[in-house]
Structure formats: structure tokens, C-alpha cells
């Protein structure tokens, strides 16, 4: 019974709050006595700071304080991997979004006015904007104290894959595709710009509300700038207006600056960003330059040599982790015997880059899935046949030596379902290949792309999560999980997982938005890990709660503890006529003075990684996806019109179908934006397109109706049987569109966003 009840259409716990406008986002909050702060930028790209003059600004009306790096109580330098990020610039300006001061004033307008009075005195340095310049042995250093493999240089990290002997084997191939692909920075464009509200509590704790996707990371940044213990900071959740990977570092830093201001002026401080500040300062998806040499022998991908350089920009952020995923997935979901991959992250003065939905896969997929298509064309076979020959199957070994045997390898399944749904092979015959039909200006093309993706963090980092289920004595249940609701529907999914495991109605469960002072650090809500990791912890906590309840209630139910059953929103004994409802169960627990309270922790199964050879079981489980698209290209204007988009993704087990499909559609749309529209127009290190009128994300009229196919193969390594879907949906549409444009125009486009110049 509970199965059906808990499979509603379109349910989420915060839907009514959001559709009525009652949901409170950070900037919607007010605190008595609250004041405002704004950032001040230095209009340089690369410069040595001599002085930040604040006197004039300090005497402006309403101004309470103007804070620079000198006022930082703890450390202005912090970061998730390297402590290189200047929350307030101290020694140098490293990119055009570096903040030199914050102005705190009674009103936001006063703070904005005063901010123009802050003066930066600096000596300009030569900006390093080109990746090869940054890599040169004699390059100017962005971070003079940074050391990589024993020498001072701009390289943040170097990942490798060494499998077989790719260099030698390329010479033995029938042909080698030798191509360079480039992708640009992408702005997350969460609809809610960054906002933070910090309240200095009488007990000495700094209470933090913020538009962030990682309360635990935020707590670390705040504690660093204040120089306090983690217990002296409590980060509370509010509704967040989207993240897509983008509300980690920058959002945490905005919170940290507000906390510093609150500590110094002794009042609650709010910082809410203008969109221009957000686009100027926040990190972006890494631009990649990818040089692939793919060797084909006997109709198979025999060897791949690839050198990739990722532009980390001014600060490292999570570049080593982003590029690790690109390294592991650099050959797509194919069986390749010989691989030689060198992947570098490098510092430049171009913005700064970090996590964005996909996390290093959208870039490599853009290259690999086009190369596969080009190989098939050269072989004069269909790309469907070519992919079938080369794709990973149950028991296959990945390029890092991982045997795919502990879950269902559903690559073939997502592939077939997508092709059937869009009717690929029949429609492929209609492709224009550069020749429009008589009297038409439209070229037609269909294209697809295929991928596999390691779940959660894998070899990137520590991967564990926790859940608290706190049943009350009236039978109602509080659920708290160390996973953050960014808008994706995490809370609803976790409620449904708990309800299913406990056999209760979902209405019995209230989600308690986590506080960093209550639940243990569960890591960041990134890497599509909310459902798999948070859901895993929830299932483990629910099982523990059932054991606690069974141990106490078995007496009342006249059976052994192991005979107690949980379904139908009740607790049953051996037979269906002996039961307690939850209200009775709660009362009994109280009378027995036993707490129906359970803590659950899920630790990801062990992964392995050898940095020297790039071999190991990089991720404990994998998901598989395929997307396809039909489009037309106008021969006169070069305009691309999307006509139909289909996606099939394997998700382990579907928890909340409407929300799951929402992830599909949103991811596909964002992938289309990446490849067709989105361009920040970075000129000499300055972002020209600084607002949503010039940075163009997909509109409703840019997109066709889409179709999503959910493939379920329960994953034995996931306690909830579910896996993640947020990122896989965003890593395939770009190459699918590039392939469709290729099939329409007969031309290849190697850079994002694709610009179809002139008359075709």
C-alpha cells in the first residue's frame, strides 16, 4: 500500500511555499538592526597591490566600516584544496573579480554610494591569459608561492592515464583522427544571485544564512576568516534559488565576508549581490583546450593520446577534482586498449573556475562524441554500429582498469531506448549533410551522444553522509540529512526514501532543514550525490529505527523483535490483525522510556587511484546515459532550431518521477545553452557580458518539447538502490547537438558555443 501512496505525481515538500511566494530565500530575510555590506572591486586583471585607500569611503554618510584584508581577524586566504583564495585581496589582484574591500553601511544604497570612493593603488603586471603562456617554463607566476612537483609554476595539478602503449600503437592504426577542441567559460546563471545574512549571536556563535549549496564548506570559510572553531559558526538552511555547482566557493566567501563585517560592527549584516557582481566575481565552468589523437584499427578505437589543459583561472578552487573526472572519462564509454592522457590544470588571470554541473565531463564528451562520429564517417559505417562495436559492456574494463561487474552496465539499454524513441536510424537517412532540399533554406540533422559517469565523489575525496531520524512520542517523524536542498528536490526524495523504508505515509515525515551544529558534516551537495549518499544514510537510519522500535514494541505485539513488520503506516506483529499505529507506538516508547531516535551513516564503498599511472577503481558505481536531438540549420542565417530532444538515463531506482524528469529537462536545456548560446565574451580577462540581457541562457522559445526515458536497474551498492541524475543529464546535449549540426551542415565545429558563420 505505501508504495502507491508514496508515488505521487509532482509532489515536493516545498512546492506550496514556493508557488505561493511564501518560501524565504536569503534576501527575503530581515533581522532587527540589520545593516548592509557590498563588495568593492579593483579594476585590474593582474596587479601588485600597494594600498587600498578607504578613508574617504569611511566618512561617507551611513558608513559603519570599510574592511580590507588588513581587518581580517583570522585568515583571508582559504580554499577547498589549496588555501590560495583571497577572500579579500591582500598581495595582488589576480582576476577582474577580486574584491579589495567591503563597505558596511546602514542602508545598501549608502554602501553602494560609498564603495565608489574606495581607491586601489596598484602596479599592473602582465596578465597571463593564454594557457600555453601560463604553462611556459619562464611564465610570470600567478601565485609566487605555489609549488607543483617541486618547482614554482602555474600548474595546479597534472593527472595521467597510462594504459598500454598509446604512442607506439597509434603508428599501427589504420588512421588517426588528430583534432583540437575548445570550450569556453560557462556561467551557472542560478536565478538567485548570492546573498548572505550573518547574525552575531549573544552566545558568541556567528549564525549564518546564505544562498549556498554547501553549508559545511561555508562553515569552514567563515571559521577561517573569523579565526574561530567550527563550533563557533552555525550555518542554517534557507530556500536556495539554484546552484548547479556554482554556490560553493563564491557563496561561502560572500557569507565569510558578511560574517567578518558582522563580527566587526557587532550587528547583523546582509550582503546581497547585484547580478553584475555575481557574474563578475563568481566562478565558472573551466574552459578546456583538448588535443585528441584517436587511432582506429580494424574498425575499433585502438589507441587514444590526449593532452588537455583546463583554465583554472586565478584560484585553484576544485580544479584538481574537476580534472580528475575528465581524466577518468577522457575516452567516453568505450573500451580502449591503449590510452595516454595528460590533463593539466593551470592558473591564469581569466576569471576563476570551479564546480559546474557535469564537473569536467561536458568538455571531454563534447570532443569524444564528435570524434566517434567522425571515425564512423571515415569508416563509412553508421555511428550506431561503430558505438556498438566499441562500447563498454557488463564485465568490461575501463581505461583506468576498473572492471564493471558490481552493478548493471546499462549502456546498451540507454542507447537502444533513445534510438528507438527518436527513430534514429530512419531519420538519419534524411540528414542534409550540407545539401538542403530543393527550394528550402533549412538543413536537417539528427545527432546523439552517449556517456558513462562515475557516481558521487569517487577518488576525488572523502565520501560519507549522515541522517537523523527522530520519531516523536505522538508518532510523527523528523528527518534530517546532511544534504542540502538547492532546488533540485533533495528533501522530497529523502522523505520518500525514508517513508518507503519505514512503511509510513510521507505526510508523517517532516524534513528538518539541517543545521551544521546539529548533524555531522556530510560533505558537499555536489557530484549528483544527494540521492545516493543522503538516501543511503537515510535508509541506514531507518533500518536502525525499525530495530529500536521492534526491540521495544515486540512485547506489545506478542512476537519476537525480528518478527515485527513495518508497512501500511503501522507496526505489525506476526499476523495482520495484530498492530500498533504510529501514535500508539510513540506512546509505548515513551512509557518504556526508550527514544525512537536513530542516526545513520553511509560510507561510500572503497575506491582506489594511482596518480602515477592513472589506474584504479575511480568510482564505486556508474550511471549511463544517452541523448539525441533533431534540429534544422538555416542556410542563410546559420540559426539553429531545435526540434526534438530525447534522453534516456539509468538511475538505479526512481524515487520521485516528476522531479527526476525535471532534472532531465533542465539538464538537456542547460546543455543546449552551453553549445549554442552561452558566451561571457571575455576580452583580455574582463567579462563583457555581465548580465542576463547579454549572457543568453535558453528561453522557453529556444527549446522544443523533450522526452525523458527513465531506466531502472537497482544498484546493489546503494542502500536506497537509487543513483544520481543531476549531472549526467547535463553532459550529453552539447555533443548531441554538435553531431546533429555536423549531419545537417556536413561541417564540424570544434569550439563552444558553436557559431555557424556565413551562408552555408
Amino acid at each position, binding site marked *: 500500500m505505501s508504495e502507491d501512496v508514496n508515488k505521487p*505525481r*509532482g*509532489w*515536493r515538500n*516545498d*512546492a*506550496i*511555499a*514556493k*508557488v*505561493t*511566494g*511564501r*518560501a*524565504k*530565500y536569503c*534576501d*527575503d530575510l530581515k533581522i532587527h538592526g540589520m545593516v548592509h555590506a557590498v563588495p568593492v572591486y579593483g579594476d585590474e586583471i593582474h596587479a601588485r597591490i600597494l594600498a587600498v585607500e578607504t578613508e574617504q569611503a569611511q566618512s561617507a554618510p551611513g558608513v559603519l566600516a570599510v574592511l580590507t584584508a588588513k581587518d581580517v581577524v583570522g585568515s583571508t586566504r582559504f580554499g577547498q584544496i589549496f588555501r590560495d583564495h583571497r577572500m579579500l585581496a591582500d598581495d595582488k589582484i589576480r582576476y577582474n573579480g577580486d574584491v579589495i574591500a567591503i563597505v558596511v553601511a546602514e542602508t545598501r544604497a549608502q554602501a553602494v554610494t560609498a564603495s565608489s570612493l574606495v581607491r586601489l593603488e596598484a602596479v599592473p603586471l602582465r596578465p597571463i591569459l593564454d594557457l600555453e603562456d601560463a604553462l611556459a617554463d619562464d611564465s610570470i607566476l600567478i601565485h609566487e608561492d605555489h609549488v607543483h612537483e617541486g618547482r614554482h609554476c602555474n600548474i595546479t595539478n597534472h593527472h595521467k592515464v597510462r594504459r598500454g602503449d598509446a604512442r607506439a600503437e597509434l603508428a599501427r592504426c589504420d588512421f588517426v583522427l588528430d583534432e583540437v577542441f575548445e570550450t569556453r567559460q560557462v556561467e*551557472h*546563471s*542560478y*536565478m*538567485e*544571485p548570492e546573498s548572505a545574512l550573518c547574525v552575531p549571536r549573544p552566545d558568541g556563535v556567528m549564525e549564518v544564512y546564505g544562498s549556498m549549496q554547501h553549508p559545511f564548506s561555508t562553515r569552514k570559510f567563515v571559521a577561517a576568516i573569523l579565526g574561530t572553531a567550527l563550533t563557533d559558526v552555525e550555518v542554517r538552511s534557507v*530556500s*536556495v*534559488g*539554484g546552484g*548547479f555547482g556554482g554556490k560553493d566557493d563564491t557563496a561561502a566567501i560572500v557569507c565569510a565576508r558578511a560574517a567578518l563585517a558582522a563580527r566587526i560592527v557587532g550587528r547583523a549584516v546582509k550582503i*546581497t549581490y*547585484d*547580478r553584475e557582481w555575481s557574474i563578475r566575481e563568481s566562478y565558472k565552468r573551466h574552459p578546456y583546450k583538448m588535443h585528441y589523437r584517436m587511432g582506429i584499427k580494424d574498425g575499433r578505437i585502438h589507441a587514444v593520446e590526449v593532452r588537455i589543459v583546463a583554465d583554472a583561472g586565478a584560484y585553484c578552487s576544485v580544479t584538481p577534482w574537476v580534472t580528475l573526472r575528465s581524466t577518468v572519462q577522457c575516452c567516453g564509454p568505450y573500451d580502449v586498449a591503449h590510452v595516454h592522457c595528460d590533463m593539466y590544470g593551470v592558473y591564469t588571470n581569466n576569471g576563476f573556475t570551479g564546480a559546474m554541473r557535469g564537473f569536467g565531463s561536458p568538455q571531454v564528451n563534447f570532443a569524444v562524441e564528435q570524434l566517434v562520429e567522425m571515425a564512423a564517417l571515415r569508416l563509412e559505417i553508421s555511428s550506431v554500429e561503430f558505438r556498438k562495436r566499441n562500447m563498454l559492456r557488463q564485465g568490461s574494463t575501463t581505461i583506468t582498469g576498473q572492471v564493471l561487474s558490481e552493478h548493471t552496465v546499462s549502456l546498451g539499454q540507454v542507447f537502444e531506448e533513445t534510438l528507438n524513441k527518436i527513430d534514429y536510424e530512419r531519420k538519419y537517412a534524411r540528414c542534409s549533410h550540407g545539401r538542403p532540399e530543393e527550394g528550402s533554406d533549412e538543413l536537417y540533422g539528427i545527432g546523439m551522444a552517449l556517456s558513462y559517469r562515475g557516481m558521487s565523489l569517487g577518488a576525488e575525496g572523502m565520501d560519507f553522509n549522515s541522517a537523523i531520524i527522530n520519531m516523536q512520542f505522538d508518532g510523527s517523524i523528523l528527518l534530517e540529512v546532511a544534504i542540502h536542498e*538547492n*532546488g*533540485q*528536490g533533495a528533501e522530497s526524495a529523502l522523505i520518500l526514501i525514508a517513508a518507503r523504508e519505514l512503511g509510513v505515509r510521507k505526510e508523517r515525515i517532516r524534513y528538518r532543514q539541517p543545521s551544521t551544529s546539529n548533524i555531522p558534516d556530510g560533505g558537499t551537495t555536489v557530484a549528483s550525490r544527494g540521492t545516493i549518499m543522503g538516501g543511503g544514510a537515510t535508509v541506514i537510519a531507518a533500518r536502525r529505527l525499525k530495530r529500536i522500535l521492534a526491540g521495544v514494541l515486540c512485547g506489545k505485539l506478542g512476537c519476537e523483535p525480528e518478527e515485527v513488520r513495518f508497512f501500511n503506516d503501522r507496526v505489525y506483529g506476526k499476523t495482520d490483525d495484530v498492530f500498533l499505529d504510529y501514535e500508539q507506538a510513540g506512546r509505548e516508547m515513551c512509557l518504556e522510556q526508550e527514544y525512537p531516535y536513530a542516526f545513520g551513516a553511509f560510507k561510500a564503498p572503497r575506491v582506489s587511484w594511482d596518480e602515477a599511472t592513472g589506474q584504479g577503481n575511480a568510482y564505486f558505481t556508474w550511471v549511463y546515459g544517452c541523448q539525441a536531438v533533431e534540429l534544422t540549420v538555416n542556410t542563410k542565417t546559420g540559426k539553429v532550431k531545435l526540434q526534438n530532444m530525447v534522453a534516456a538515463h539509468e538511475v538505479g531506482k526512481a524515487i520521485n518521477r*516528476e*522531479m527526476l*524528469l*525535471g532534472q*532531465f*529537462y*533542465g*539538464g*538537456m*536545456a*542547460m546543455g543546449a545553452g552551453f553549445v549554442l548560446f552561452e558566451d561571457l565574451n571575455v576580452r583580455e580577462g574582463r567579462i563583457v557580458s555581465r*548580465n*542576463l*540581457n547579454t549572457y543568453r*541562457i*535558453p*528561453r*522557453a*522559445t529556444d*527549446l522544443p*518539447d*523533450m522526452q525523458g526515458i527513465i531506466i531502472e536497474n537497482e544498484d546493489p551498492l546503494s542502500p536506497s538502490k537509487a543513483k544520481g541524475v543531476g549531472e549526467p543529464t547535463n553532459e550529453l546535449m552539447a555533443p548531441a547537438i554538435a553531431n546533429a549540426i555536423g549531419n545537417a551542415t556536413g561541417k564540424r565545429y570544434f569550439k563552444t558555443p558553436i557559431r555557424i558563420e556565413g551562408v552555408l
Partner: protein
Amino acid sequence: MITTTINGRSHVLPESALRQSLLSYLREDLDLTGAKYGCGVGACGACSILVDKTVVKSCRQTGLYIVGKNVLTIEGMARPGGELHPLQKAFVDHGAIQCGFCTPAMVLTAHALLLKNSNPTRDEIRKAISANLCRCTGYQQIVDAIQSAAEHYR
């Protein structure tokens, strides 16, 4: 006395509101925080409200714009007693809500469309909401919701 009607109730506008950004007046002075700041240049539509049943980007106007007019914000959409308007219900049922930041303005924009055209095609719906940006949903379930709610306007 300068008056306006907001969500069905008559309201006296202070002199200062006439020069203030309408979005800021609604949010900061009246605590009607359903209208959101997303860009400040009228590009994202998150601040949209209805003035005399027409979509207005409140970040681009001052309080002067609503003098003597009828304003509807998201806070005025639900029926008295809190029952959701059928259009709001459709958004919930179709999974058209993710982060929710664009949702209030999206609902109001759809409401304005359906008041004028109670039987729109999917293309007409897409056109009507094309000035409202959403980064989460890919718009599909929003279009579904608006289409299914249309019958309540006939």
C-alpha cells in the same frame, strides 16, 4: 492622497515610493517578497507582477507606475483561506517547480496569458513566458502546467 490597490486591498502610497524602485518598495517596504531580484535590467522576469492584468517588470518601474491601478502579486493569487489557485495547483502537480525563484513571476505571467487566451497552444505558452528565465526546469513542466490549467479560465 495617492492610492493604489494591491491584491484587492486599497493602499496609500507614501511620497517616497513614487521615486523608489517598485520592486524594492514591494519587497522592502511591504514585505511582499514573492517578487524577486534576478538581474535589475528587466532581462530575467523574476520581478514580474501584474498591473491591471498586464505583466510588468517591477525592477524597471517606480511606485509612480501603480498609482490608481490594480496590482496583483503572487501573495494575492491563492483563494481567500489559502486554497491554491488552479494555476498554482497545476504547477505543483506537474512538477513545474524546482528552486522556485522564478516561480511567482512565472505563475503571474501565465495568469496574464490565460486571462486573455484560455486555450493557448504550446507555442503560444512558450512565447508568453519567453521573457521569464528559468535555469532549473527546461520549461517543459511549466508549459505542461499552464496548458492543463487553461480549462479553469474557460
